[in-house]
């Protein structure tokens, strides 16, 4: 709200001077210093990046143990500061607290890399990340408040599990044909290949990692003094799950060959998603909770159907649009305005791509191009109409 607008309105007689004054006072008390927060965020990011590059510079003038000691002292100092200032600030400033947690956690992560550099050790990447998760999860989840910490923790979780997955495939599937192509690291493992008993169980469960974080979030949210933070974790979990499923569908559509083995992984992943949906519905029996569970169940169906139906232009396209259509329906039910509009836009874009795919044989003749163009215009027009007319009013999620 700008002072200029207030003046203009009161001069135009839209509001009287008392109202204008009351608005000023209310604004002064409730203003969110967005600019300040942006600066704090920028500052935290700069410090984080600076730490990384200081470690990367590998100064030989300073002995490694001294560098590590300085690094550890910085962490301890910042930890002491967080402890000292807790509860002290009169106005609880979410982003300042989060920035301090972010920096201390970033220092912790770079410390692993720093040790590796000083002692010239190397290990699979999931190991330091898992160590970091174990050591910092109580701090991040116990005291985080905003997007900064929520995103950092979710990113850590997903990166750790994907790195472990990658290592697992390298290690256990040295000579197994998977995903239609050989992941071959040579046949020289000297009997070291330990064939796991339940590989599909592992892969299905790891695929559902971000969804499991949602269970933690919904079950803790009602008991926590920071329900907003847990809502962010839940939202991130849902977004990552949905994007992951969509990404797989696109990958299918872009041309993979049939691999029946994958159905087993898909079934395990689908069971996990359904279990998460049940948990979300149980802890949050609101329209929003029901819609979230609905999206997860729809995702579970997609995961199973994608490898079964096949992924030619039409099948893959329809599946993808059905998935996002169900998300739009869930958004309509729970009054998620932005999500509804985004889902409609994604369906429209996929439909346009599909029209070009289907017309590809005709494209050479020019007729196909004209048809695809007409379809594009029509779809865009309908999407904008639907998005404006049927989008629900925003409500609290």
């Amino acid at each position: 709200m700008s002072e200029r607008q207030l003046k203009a309105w009161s001069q135009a007689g839209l509001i009287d001077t008392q109202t204008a004054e009351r608005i000023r006072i209310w604004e002064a008390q409730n203003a969110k210093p967005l600019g300040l927060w942006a600066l704090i965020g920028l500052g935290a990011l700069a410090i984080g990046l600076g730490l990384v590059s200081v470690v990367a510079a590998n100064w030989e003038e300073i002995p490694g143990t001294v560098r590590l000691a300085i690094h550890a002292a910085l962490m301890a100092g910042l930890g002491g500061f967080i402890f000292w200032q807790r509860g002290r600030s009169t106005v609880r400033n979410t982003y300042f607290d989060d920035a301090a947690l972010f920096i201390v956690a970033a220092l912790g992560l770079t410390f692993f890399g720093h040790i590796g550099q000083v002692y010239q050790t190397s290990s699979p990447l999931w190991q330091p990340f898992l160590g970091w998760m174990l050591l910092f999860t109580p701090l991040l989840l116990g005291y985080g408040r905003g997007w900064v910490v929520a995103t950092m923790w979710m990113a850590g979780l997903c990166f750790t599990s994907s790195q472990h997955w990658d290592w697992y495939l390298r290690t256990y599937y040295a000579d197994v044909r998977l995903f239609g192509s050989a992941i071959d690291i040579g046949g020289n493992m000297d009997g070291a290949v330990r064939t796991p008993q339940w590989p599909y169980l592992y892969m299905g469960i790891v695929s559902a990692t971000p969804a499991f974080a949602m269970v933690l979030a919904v079950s803790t949210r009602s008991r926590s003094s920071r329900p907003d933070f847990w809502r962010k974790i839940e939202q991130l979990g849902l977004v990552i799950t949905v994007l992951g499923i969509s990404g797989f569908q696109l990958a299918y559509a872009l041309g993979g060959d049939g691999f029946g083995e994958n159905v087993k992984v898909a079934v395990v992943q689908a069971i996990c998603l359904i279990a998460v949906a049940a948990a979300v519905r149980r802890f949050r029996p609101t329209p929003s909770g029901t819609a979230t569970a609905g999206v997860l169940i729809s995702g579970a169906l997609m995961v199973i159907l994608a490898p079964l139906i096949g992924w030619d232009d039409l099948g893959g396209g329809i599946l993808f649009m059905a998935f996002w259509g169900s998300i739009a329906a869930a958004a309509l039910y729970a009054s998620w305005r932005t999500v509804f509009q985004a889902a409609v836009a994604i369906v429209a874009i996929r439909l346009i791509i599909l029209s070009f795919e289907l017309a590809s044989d005709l494209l050479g003749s020019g007729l196909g191009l004209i048809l695809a163009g007409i379809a594009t215009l029509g779809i865009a027009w309908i999407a904008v109409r639907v998005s404006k007319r049927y989008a629900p009013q925003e409500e609290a999620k």
Partner: protein
Amino acid sequence: MERKSLVVAAALSLPLIGLGFVWADTHRKAQTGTDWDVPIRGYDPRDLLRGHYITYQYDWPRLSGNTLGYISELCIEGKAPAILRTTVAGAPIVQEPGMPPLQAKCAVIARAPYGGDDQGNGLGGGLYYVPQTMAAEYEKKLRDPKLQGIIRLRIRDDGIVRPIGLTFRVRPLPDVGQGEVSDPR
């Protein structure tokens, strides 16, 4: 201290104690093991986010066994730091003419971390962190066909290897490469 403060203090201390333990453990293990010299080939990709390092391939002296692809275990013969002969674990050791008779006993067995390091390397290669100021010089020397890079490896008793130094020596002419015994120096 009230209970809430204790919980905060615990959450803040856990990472510090944990990282301290990781450091102490790494430091302790770094002191053990024997040092060996291994010729290498390599280059410097200058990864800014992870620090400057050289990735390289080992030219294990007199290597025998199945050397294609991933090497997870290697029997090393010789007297540190000079390697006489290396054999991929499990492969039969071949007696070559002109070589001292085989004891069929490894001085040490080098082992790759299970599943390889984060580069997916077994014992075929590795990476060596170098100071920023030295990176360009090392890169130039590694490209010089007249010079042979030598990595000094410390092999822990449990077989885990880590590079602790990089030196260069003039390559004998003509380049005999893999076949020669490493210079003890």
